[in-house]
C-alpha cells in the first residue's frame, strides 16, 4: 500500500483518495461575477475572447519577471538606485507590462531582512510576479507573520541572528512590495541571466533567501 489512508475503498490507482467533486451551488459572488461578465459581453463592452486573453496574460506572469528585475539590480547600480526610488518605473523600463501596479522594492542588507504580508486580504504584486502561492493567502501566514515573523521564517528554513532587524511590511492599501534580496556570496563572475536563476519567488516575498551558486 503506497500510503496508509484509512478508507481503502476510495483510493485511486495512485494510492491517494479521490478528490471530492466540487459540484456545489455557486456562491452569491460567483453568480454576480458571471452575471456582470455576461452583461458586459451582451452589451458589446468586451468579448469572451478578450477576457480569455487577459487570463492568459495573467497566467504568463511568473516569478521569473521579478527574478530578472532583482538580477539586474545586482549587476547595475544605476538600475538598483532607480528600483529603490520607483520600482514600478524601473520594472516598466525593463519591458514588463505591470499595468497600474504601484510597486515598492525593499532592500535586504546584512542588518535588515524584509518580509511581505497582507493581513487584510492577499495583496501581492501579481502584475509582476503572477499569482501568489496559496499559503500567502492563508489565515495562518497572514496573522502570524505580523506577530511572530521569526517563527514563521524558521518554518521556511530561514533563521536570522539577533543582529538582524526584521521589517515586516503589511500591504494594507495601494502599494505592493517586492524584496530585493542581498546578492549571494560567491557570485562575482556571474552575469544577470545566471544570477536570475538564483532568485526564488520566496526570496522576493522575504520568506526565503536566494539560492547558493
Amino acid at each position, binding site marked *: 500500500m503506497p500510503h496508509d489512508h484509512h478508507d481503502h475503498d476510495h483510493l485511486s490507482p495512485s494510492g491517494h483518495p479521490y478528490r471530492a467533486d466540487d459540484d456545489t451551488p455557486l456562491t452569491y459572488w460567483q453568480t454576480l461575477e458571471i452575471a456582470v461578465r455576461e452583461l458586459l459581453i451582451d452589451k458589446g463592452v468586451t468579448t469572451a475572447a478578450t477576457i480569455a486573453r487577459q487570463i492568459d496574460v495573467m497566467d504568463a506572469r511568473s516569478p521569473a519577471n521579478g527574478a530578472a528585475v532583482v538580477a539586474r539590480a545586482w549587476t547595475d547600480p544605476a538600475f538598483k538606485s532607480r528600483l529603490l526610488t520607483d520600482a514600478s518605473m524601473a520594472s516598466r523600463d525593463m519591458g514588463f507590462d505591470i499595468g497600474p501596479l504601484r510597486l515598492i522594492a525593499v532592500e535586504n542588507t546584512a542588518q535588515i531582512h524584509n518580509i511581505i504580508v497582507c*493581513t*487584510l486580504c492577499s495583496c501581492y504584486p501579481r502584475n509582476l510576479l503572477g499569482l501568489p502561492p496559496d499559503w500567502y493567502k492563508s489565515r495562518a501566514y497572514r496573522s502570524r507573520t*505580523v*506577530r*511572530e*515573523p*521569526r*517563527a514563521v521564517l524558521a518554518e521556511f528554513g530561514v533563521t536570522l541572528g*539577533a543582529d538582524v*532587524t*526584521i*521589517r*515586516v*511590511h*503589511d*500591504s*494594507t*492599501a*495601494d*502599494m505592493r512590495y517586492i524584496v530585493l534580496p542581498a546578492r549571494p556570496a560567491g557570485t562575482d563572475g556571474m552575469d544577470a541571466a545566471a544570477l536570475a536563476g538564483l532568485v526564488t519567488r520566496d526570496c522576493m516575498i522575504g520568506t526565503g533567501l536566494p539560492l547558493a551558486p
Partner: protein
Amino acid sequence: MTRVRVHTYMPPGHVRTPAYLRGKTGVIERALGPFPNPETLAYGLPGARTDLYRVRFTMAEVWGDMAETPTDTLDAEIFGHWLERLD
C-alpha cells in the same frame, strides 16, 4: 521623523486600517501621495483623493510584552484621516 498615533475608531464597513494597529504610535516612513479613499470607493461611491502614508511601528509598540523581538519593525499603509500627529 514625524510621530503619529492611529485613531481608535471602530466604524462599520470597509476600512483598510488593521484593527491591531489602532491606538498604536509610529513614525511616518514616507508619504505616498493621495489615493482614492477605499472607505467610500468600496461602495461604488467616488473615493475622495486622500493622503496615504507608510507608518513604521516597533514590535514592542504593537505587541507590548508579547513581542517576539521588540526592536523588529512593522510598516503599514495608513490613510491620513486615521492618523493623529504627535509632534
